[in-house]
């Protein structure tokens, strides 16, 4: 934390009681007026409908996370889900049933401003059709307290592509943003080649990054890889979030991309969500990683 603890920081510390991640790399000056800062929560990769040994608590993990967010002393301005709300199924009816269920559970959030992104498990078998019915558009923008947010869809195309049409839309939207205004991109897959051997990439992600480089203040938050990862492509920081179903090994650290085994001695290890305190004046983001309590 900084030299002074703001009311909000204190509230967060008391609510989480856990470790606070604050690296100088993604953190700017402390000069901004606290009143202008805000925070939001990122949850990712819930895989509702998944059953198996990697998470014997698959039915309760998301509910625990939602209860923890509801218990935060100072509620976030909004909550964003960065994809894979459901685990994939070939059965269109079952997919819709999972989406209806997970939507009902998410409705328990006290915070009513909730943004949704699709993951390949939600959208890649039907080009996002069911997702759109339950959660709305797969790419869109919104503004919040001086920050411009862009939700990018790199999963409706089963090839993990954004596609030229959406890239053109991105370029046009970005061109309209003042250079002083911070931009946050929300997406599912990494836009850069994190580990293409495990499909941890976006096929036309390089084109998206090229467009994003036309703006000086871009930060990306994504999911897909079921673990925290922080990476810079030039001036752009890319932050992946933990999952709420199972953790995956570090890129290339094991021969196969198999889930990290559940540890009964340490249940929910590697699972969690994140709160992000945004400072629109400095385009700095302070990330707080929160684990799931047994």
């Amino acid at each position, binding site marked *: 934390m900084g030299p002074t603890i703001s009311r909000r920081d204190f509230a967060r510390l008391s609510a989480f009681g856990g470790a606070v991640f604050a690296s100088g790399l993604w953190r700017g000056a402390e000069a901004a007026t606290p009143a202008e800062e805000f925070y939001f929560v990122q949850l990712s990769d819930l895989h509702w409908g998944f059953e198996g040994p990697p998470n014997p608590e698959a039915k309760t993990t998301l509910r625990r996370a939602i209860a923890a967010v509801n218990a935060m002393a100072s509620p976030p301005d909004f909550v964003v889900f960065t994809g894979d709300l459901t685990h*994939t199924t070939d059965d269109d009816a079952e997919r819709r049933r999972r989406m209806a269920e997970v939507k009902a559970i998410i409705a328990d959030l006290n915070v009513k401003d909730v943004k949704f992104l699709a993951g390949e498990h939600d959208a890649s078998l039907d080009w996002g059709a069911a997702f759109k019915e339950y959660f709305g558009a797969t790419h869109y923008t919104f503004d919040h307290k001086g920050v411009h947010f862009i939700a990018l869809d790199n999963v409706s195309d089963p090839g993990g592509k954004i596609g030229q049409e959406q890239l053109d839309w991105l370029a046009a939207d970005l061109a309209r943003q003042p250079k002083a205004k911070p931009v946050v991109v929300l997406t599912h897959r990494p836009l850069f080649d994190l580990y293409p051997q495990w499909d941890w990439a976006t096929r036309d992600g390089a084109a998206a990054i090229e467009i994003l480089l036309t703006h000086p203040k871009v930060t990306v938050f994504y999911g897909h890889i079921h673990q925290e990862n922080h990476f810079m492509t030039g001036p752009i920081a890319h932050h992946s979030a933990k999952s709420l179903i199972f953790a995956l090994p570090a890129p290339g650290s094991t021969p196969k991309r198999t889930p990290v085994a559940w540890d009964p001695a340490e249940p929910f290890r590697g699972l969690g969500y994140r709160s992000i305190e945004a400072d629109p004046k400095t385009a700095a983001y302070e990330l707080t990683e929160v684990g799931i309590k047994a």
Partner: protein
Amino acid sequence: MKPAIIAAALLCLLGVAASAAIPPERHVAIKATRFFYSPARIVLKTGQPVVLELTALDRLHGFDIPELHIRADILPGQVTEVRLTPAKAGTYEFHCDNFCGSGHETMAAKIVVED
């Protein structure tokens, strides 16, 4: 079922003189089905030109060797040819990069290149 040439990749043949006779292409059939490739291990020789004949038995799959920057879509009902000449011995993993269902993440196999 007309063969379609979707992707062709020729790796540089280091140290091969222009006059050297180019050995004839070897054809290797690879079948893709959820969630594996058959065969799962393909052994090739350095300098031997190869045509991989990829067929999907059930639905759209992908063929991606990130290390060599070679990829192709494998469509059902047609043969997708990928031409390559391995230049360097080693093991090259390939995987499906078109999401194909619960198990997609495990759809991978390897090419072993020997001298």
